[in-house]
């Protein structure tokens, strides 16, 4: 198996991502307007929301991979599912950390039962269970099937979980700044740029992670 970093495509994509990420950070720090009352805390928005987008996208990929694995029994789908679940959980953890940091100046306390945050927390807990299935689900081949089934079940419940939390405390509104359509262009443009950079970063991360998993499985085969 060729070393991942020896391929020209991969080298270029990593370089481009590093440059874009640096530009993104500088853009967020220097180019975005300071929102009154929120000041620096508001800039977390440019990391928090893209992280949530990546997290949910990742879990969607886990669901699709799970479905494909169950129907085709091709291990490549399990590898993609595992990579997506790990990266998705990392970004969800980021959401749960940045959310309270951002919430404190807005609501005066780090945690409120805001629907998106609570949905993220519930999904995060479900995926901790997913990793436990991976660790304790029996022999590897059975574990993969169980994990695939859980990945499907977890994501199909996302709309229900979100709706139920939203209606549970209707007095707790989503953070107003999450309503994208109402944002001025000096906030919207850097946000979209950040979203694109995060998505590209995710693509690189998942490709590399799948490569490492394949390498690991290849080393352990035919023992």
């Amino acid at each position, binding site marked *: 198996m060729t070393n991942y970093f020896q391929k020209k495509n991969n080298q270029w994509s990593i370089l481009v991502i590093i440059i874009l990420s640096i530009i993104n950070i500088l853009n967020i720090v220097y180019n975005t307007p300071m929102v009154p009352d929120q000041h620096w805390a508001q800039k977390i928005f440019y990391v928090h929301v893209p992280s949530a987008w990546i997290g949910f996208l990742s879990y969607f990929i886990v669901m699709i991979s799970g479905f494909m694995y169950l129907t085709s029994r091709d291990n490549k789908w399990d590898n993609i599912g595992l990579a997506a679940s790990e990266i998705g959980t990392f970004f969800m953890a980021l959401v749960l950390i940045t959310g309270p940091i951002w919430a404190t100046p807005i609501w005066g306390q780090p945690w409120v039962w805001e629907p998106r945050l609570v949905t993220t927390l519930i999904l995060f807990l479900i995926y901790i269970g997913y990793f436990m299935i991976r660790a304790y689900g029996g*022999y590897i081949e059975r574990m993969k099937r169980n994990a695939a089934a859980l990945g499907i079940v977890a994501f199909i419940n996302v709309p229900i979980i979100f709706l139920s939390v939203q209606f549970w405390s209707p007095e707790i509104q989503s953070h107003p700044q999450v309503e994208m359509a109402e944002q001025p262009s000096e906030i919207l443009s850097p946000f979209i740029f950040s979203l694109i950079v995060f998505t590209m970063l995710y693509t690189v991360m998942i490709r590399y992670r799948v490569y490492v998993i394949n390498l690991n499985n290849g080393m352990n085969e035919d023992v």
Partner: protein
Amino acid sequence: MLSVQNISKAFNRKKILKNISFSQKEGESIVFMGRNGAGKSTLFRIIARLMTYDNGSIIFQGKNLLKVKPIHSSKLFYLGHSPGMYHPFSAIENLNFLLSLRKIYKDQSEILDVLDQFGLMESANEPIGVYSEGMLQRLKIVCAQLMDWDMILIDEPFSNLDKDGLDLVQKHISFWRSQNKTISMILHNKNHAENFCDRILTLESGIIK
């Protein structure tokens, strides 16, 4: 009757079965032998659709078992190591349940008659949780006798049996062979094997020798 082609199975990435292929004609009896851990029980559990496989195909009565609904394997019966029954139920209740799963309707008198042949009449109404290993083994063969099958997979039919039990089971296997039923068994005793089969296949290191 049965055609197994290139069946492979790994546990924790260790290949237990490596491209197993064999065929079994209608009415033929095959005994599978091999050391512990050779993969004999695993092979039977895969054919019985109790366990998944990594690749290959199993054609039973013209249908690929692994791609069709379970209803198409109704004429294939599997008896594993364990009793495969519910311990709170009595022998009669377990048998009635298993028969109804396969939509087979038998008179209670017929069920009791077979139980009597195997010396289980007295404990027929007791929960099988109190049965000894030998009694459970006999009960499994009673179950096989009552079921409607063209092919049976039996994992160690003679284990835990006393002399009377052994005679009974041997008699029934001989009877099934005379009825042109297709039988596959896992045995460890070569004498038994030679008396009750047309062919012996030995599994070693995941392949058939």
